[in-house]
C-alpha cells in the first residue's frame, strides 16, 4: 500500500495535470470535432442539484469531475480496495492534497471546496451518507472481486461512477442475494453459503 507521503506527491502531480486539462477544456477549440472519441469527457455544469439521483451528501463531491473529467483512478482515493475487504474512504488529508492548490473554477465549485477546507481547518470530518449498504451477515471481500474483475471492475456493481455527479445506487445493482448469485452463476464461482455468510 502506498504511504501518505507518496500519495500526497502523486496528488500534487494530478492537480497540475487536472488544472491544465481544465484550462484546455475551457479554452474554446473549434478545431477538435466535438463528437470525436478522443474528446476528453467534460463534466456538465449543474445548476439544479435537487433533481440528481442519490442522497444529498454534506459536501457536493462530484465523482464525474474527479473520476470522469480528471480521470483520477478510483484507487487513488479508495486505496485499500485491492488489499482489503474494505475499499477505504479517503481521509480528509487526501482531499487536501489537491485542494490546497485547487480552489475551483466556478462559484459553486469554490463553495464546495471551501467546505472541504473548513472541515480540514476545523478538524471535523464530513459525515458522508452510505449509499451501498450490506447487512453485516453478508461479507463482501472487495479485494477478491477486484482481483477477479480487474482494476475497473468497480463499475459492475457501482455503476459508471465516472459519469455520476452524485453517487446513487444503480437500479440494476439491487445488492440483494439473488443479484449476487446471478453473477456467481454466470462466472461459475462458488455459491457456497459460508463464502459470504459467517
Amino acid at each position, binding site marked *: 500500500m502506498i504511504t501518505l507521503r507518496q500519495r500526497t506527491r502523486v496528488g500534487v502531480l494530478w492537480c497540475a495535470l487536472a488544472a491544465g486539462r481544465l484550462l484546455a477544456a475551457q479554452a474554446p477549440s473549434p478545431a477538435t470535432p466535438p463528437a470525436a472519441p478522443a474528446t476528453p469527457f467534460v463534466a456538465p455544469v449543474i445548476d439544479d442539484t435537487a433533481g440528481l439521483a442519490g442522497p444529498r451528501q454534506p459536501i457536493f463531491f462530484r465523482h464525474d469531475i474527479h473520476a470522469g473529467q480528471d480521470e483520477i483512478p478510483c484507487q487513488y482515493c479508495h486505496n485499500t480496495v485491492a488489499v482489503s475487504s474494505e475499499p477505504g474512504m479517503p481521509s480528509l488529508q487526501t482531499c487536501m492534497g489537491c485542494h490546497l492548490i485547487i480552489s475551483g473554477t466556478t462559484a459553486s465549485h469554490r463553495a464546495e471546496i471551501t467546505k472541504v477546507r473548513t472541515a480540514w481547518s476545523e478538524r471535523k470530518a464530513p459525515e458522508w451518507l452510505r449509499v451501498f449498504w450490506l447487512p453485516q451477515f453478508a461479507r463482501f471481500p472487495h479485494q477478491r472481486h477486484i482481483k477477479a474483475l480487474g482494476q475497473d471492475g468497480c463499475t459492475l456493481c457501482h455503476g459508471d461512477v465516472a459519469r455520476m455527479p452524485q453517487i446513487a445506487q444503480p437500479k440494476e445493482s439491487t445488492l440483494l442475494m439473488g443479484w449476487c448469485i446471478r453473477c456467481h452463476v454466470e462466472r461459475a464461482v462458488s455459491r457456497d453459503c459460508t463464502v459470504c*455468510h459467517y
Partner: protein
Amino acid sequence: MSDGINRRRFLKVLGVTGGGAAAISACGIGPEPTRKLIPYLVAPEGQIPGTATIYASTCRECAAGCGIHVRVREGHAVKIEGNAESPVNRGRLCARGQAALQGLYNPDRVRTPLARGADGHLAPITWDEALQRLDEQVRGASEQGIVFLTGHDTGAMDELVDEWLASIGGRRVRYEPFAYEALREGNRLAFGSADVPHYDLAAAKYVLSFGADFLDTWLDPVAFQNAFARARAFEAGRAVSPARLVYVGPRLPVTGMNADEWLAAVPGTEGKLALALAHVIARDGLAPASADAGRLADLLADHAPAAVAAETGVPAAVIERVARDFARSGAPLAVAGGMAAHYPNGAGIVAAVNVLNHVAGASGKTVRHGAALPAEAAGRYADMAELTGDLADGAVALLLVRGANPAHSLSGAFIQALDKARFVVSFATTLDETTAAADLVLPDLHPLEQWNDSRPRPGLTALQQPVMQPVFADCRAAGDVLLGLLGRPGGFRAHLEARWRERHRRAGSRESFDAFWMAALQRGGLYDGGEGAARAARLTADPAALRAALEAGIGGPVEQPMCVVFPHPVLHDGRGADKPWLQELPDPVSKIAWHAWVEVHPDTAAAWGVVSGDVVLLTSPAGAVRAPVWVTPSVRPGTVAVPTGQGHVASGRYARDRSFNAFTLLADAPTAWGGRAFAARVTVARTGDHRRLASVEGNSRPHGKGSVETLGLAAAAALGAADHPFHHEETPEYAREAAEHWADAQYRKTELGNYAGDQPRWGLAVDLTRCTGCSACVTACYAENNIATVGEELLTRGREMSWLRIERYWLTDDHGTPQGAVSSLMMCQQCGNAPCEPVCPVYAAYHTPDGLNGQVYNRCVGTRYCANNCPYKVRYFNWYNYAEVGGAWDAFPDPLHLLLNPDVTVREKGVMEKCTFCVQRIRGAQNTARLEDRTVRDGEIVPACAQTCPSEAIVFGDLNDPQSRVSVMAGDPRGYHVLAGLNTKPAVTYLARVMHADLGAPPPAEH
C-alpha cells in the same frame, strides 16, 4: 450507537469505514454497518480498514509477563493472542490473558477522577482539581508518613514510583495475596538465598508436586504447561517414556487432575513426606550422595517411611516405591508451593522439598539456581501487616494505592485501619474495594492503553505499548501523573524512551536507536538476554532450624476439619471477578461457574448428612462464610477446600455481591516465616438452605464411554503404525451398507457445481495426553466468536452458550479414589455424515464443499431440530437477544460491545449457533492466498482454540492433504472418533490419553 460514550468520540476511536462500526442493532443480526461513513482526518500509517493490525505488547494479568499480540480492527483491540517470539509463553496464552480485553472495555471502569465529597460519596471532579488536591495532600503529608502500596511490579513504572517516593521521603509497600513467600523463605532456609530457581519441567522425567499447581496458578503457568506437555507428550517410537507426575496435596487442582498418582497426605505433613522420600533415596544410595546432604544425615534418619507413614497418612510401601521411581527416573524434579506452602510450616515444607531435590540430584539439573525469577517484587506479607498497624496508629498521612486490592483479600482489621489514614489516593481502572474506600480516585489507563516495560525473567525485558486510543478520554496514565508531580517535562512515553536510549547506549550496538527501538516494539521486548550463569546451590540448611520450621502447625482443635483456601484458577485472588468471560468459565476441576463452593469428600458429606448444593456455615477463628457444598472425591476426607476470588462488595456489576469471600476465613497474623497461612480449622454447620450449583458437570448417566479413551503406556508403546485399536467401531456391521452408499454419494458430489474438483476437508486433532483441561481454549473461543455470556441464572437452567466445553472424567483406582482425570474438548465435530444437516428445513445447517457443517445464522429460523439430532450436543440456541442494547440479557453492555469481532456475525434471538472451526479465519486465509495466487499453506489457518492452547494439544488442517500435520495425527494409532459407532464420520480425531501402566483404566462415568 447507544449513548454512554458520545458518538463523535466513539468514531474518533473507531476511525471507521463501517465493518462492525456501529453498535449492535436490537433487531436483525447485528452489529450492522453504520449508515454514515466518517473518514479519518489523517489516515493512520499502516492501518488498512477491514484488516487487522497487530501490536506486540505484554500481558499484565499476572506477573508471568507473557508476550501478546493484540489484533486491532478499525482502531479497536478485538482479540489477544500469544506472541510466538516471547520465550515465556511461546505464542500461547491462558484464559486470564485472553480476558484482558474485558478489563479494557469493562463497563464499570472508572471514567473520570472521583473525590469523596462532604456527603461521604465519591463524586466526579476535573483532572485539574484532582491534581491540585493530590499536590496539596503530598505537600501536607511529607515527613508525616507517605506510603505507596502497589502489587507485583518491575520495570519503568515500578522504578518511577520509588524515584518519586525518594524525592518526597515516602515508603514503598508491595502486596500480593499470593506472593510465593514461603517458596522464597524455604529456599533461604535450604540454600541461604531467597532466589526462586528455574524449574526445567520440559527436561523432567518424574515430577513430584507438593501442592504446587504449576499448570494453572503457580509462578509461570503458561510456560510450565507448555514445558510439561512436551515432557509428557507421547510420541510413538520415542525412546524415553513420557514424564510421570505425582501430586501431593489435600485436594486436586488442575495440576493434580493431570497427575498419574495422587498422594493425599495430611495437610501440613508434606515436608515430612519429602524428607521420608529423601531418606529412602539416601539410605538405598539411589542417587550419587552429595556432600551437603551429609550434614542432614540425622534429620533424614528420623524420617524413615515407617516413622512418618502414620502421621502423613501415606503408606510406607508407597513412599518406598515413589522414592525409588523418583530417583531412578533419571531426571527427577520436585516442586513445592501453592497449597503446600500455605501452612504455618510452609517454608519448612519447601525447604524439605529442596532437600529432596538435592538428595535426588535434581539441583543443578532440572532445578537451575542462579536464574532467579523476580519473585521479590511481589513483596513481603510482614510489610503489609506493618502497614496495617501503622494505619491503625494513624501513622500514615497519605496512602497511595495502585495495582493492589488489600481491602478484599485482608479482613476487617485492614479496612478499619484504612479509615484511619488521613487521605487515600487510588490509581485504578475499576472501582475495587480499596478504591471504593479511597478519598481521591485517579482513573488509570488499562495496561493495553499505556506504555511500560517489565522484567518477568532474568535477562528478559518485556515492552508494553498502547494498542489503541484510551477507551475513555478522561483516564490518565499513573506514570504521567507521577512525572507531573516530579515536575518532569514530557509524558511517560518520553521517560520510557529515555531509559531505552540509555539501555541502547550501554549495549553499544552499532544500529541506530530508532532501529533498536522499533525492533523491540515489534518483537514486544528484548528476549535474547539469556538466563544468566547458573550457579551450584549449596545446601546450607541448619537441621535444627529445618526441624523447627517443619513443626509449626495449624492451631485449633484437631478434630475440626482443616479448611484449605486455594487460588481460583481464573478469578485468582479476585482480580478476574469483574470479567464475565472468566465468571462464566467453569472451573476446570469443579465445573462450577459464577459462584464459589466448598469441596467435601463423599464420606465426610455422608457423615455430615449434606449433599451437593446444601449451604453450610464455615466458621474459623477469623470469620465465617456461607458456602454451597460440592461433594467430590477430589478432596481428602476430613478436609474441606474453598476457592478465593468471589465475594466482592465492589468491583463492578459482574463481581459485586456474588457468593462468599474465602479470605475472611483466614487469620491476618503473619506466620513464623513471615507469610500468611491459607488454611484454618473450621466448624461446619448446616444452614438448611439449598441452592442449585451453577455447574456444567455432566450427570451421572454411565456413558462417558466412547467420549474419552485411554491407553496404558505399555499398550500404547506396543502399537504399530498400522494398528487402530479404536477404529473397529468406525462402521459397525449394521451401518456398513449405509456407509458405502454414503461414500458413493460423496463421490458423486464431486461432479456437482459447488462441490466439483478437489476440496480441502478441514479437520482437527486433539491429543488428550497433552490436554490439561486448563480451559484457555474456551475463553479464546468466546473472544473470537462473539459468544454471549448468559449469567448464573440461565447457566443453572442449562442455557450456556459455550461452543467448546471441556468434559472432565476422573481416573479412579480400585477404591474409587481419583488419581487424576482425563479432560476432553467437545466442540462441533464437523461430521462428514452429519445428523444435523438433513433435518434442517431451510438449509441453514448444510454441508460446505470443504467439509464443514455450515451454519448460516441469517437463514436459520430456529426449529432446533438440528440440536435435537446432534448426538454430541454441541449446538447452542439464542433463547434471548443477548446483543440487544440495554436489553435484560445484554451480554455486551457499552463499551464491552467494542470487543466484538467484526468478522463474526452477532447472532440474534431465535438462532442456532455452533463452532465452525473459526470459518472466518479460514475464509480470511483463503482470501489472502487467492490474492497471492497460491493455495493455503498447512498451519496458515489456526482456530482460536488451537492458537491459544498452552500445551499445544490442538492441531488444525486439511485432512485431504496427507502431508498436513492434522492428517498425520488423524492417522495415529491412538486416534479415535467420539461415538464412532453412529457413523457420523467426524472431522475431529482424538488421540487417546496415555497413562502409566500402574493406573487403572477409567470408568469414565464416575465423576
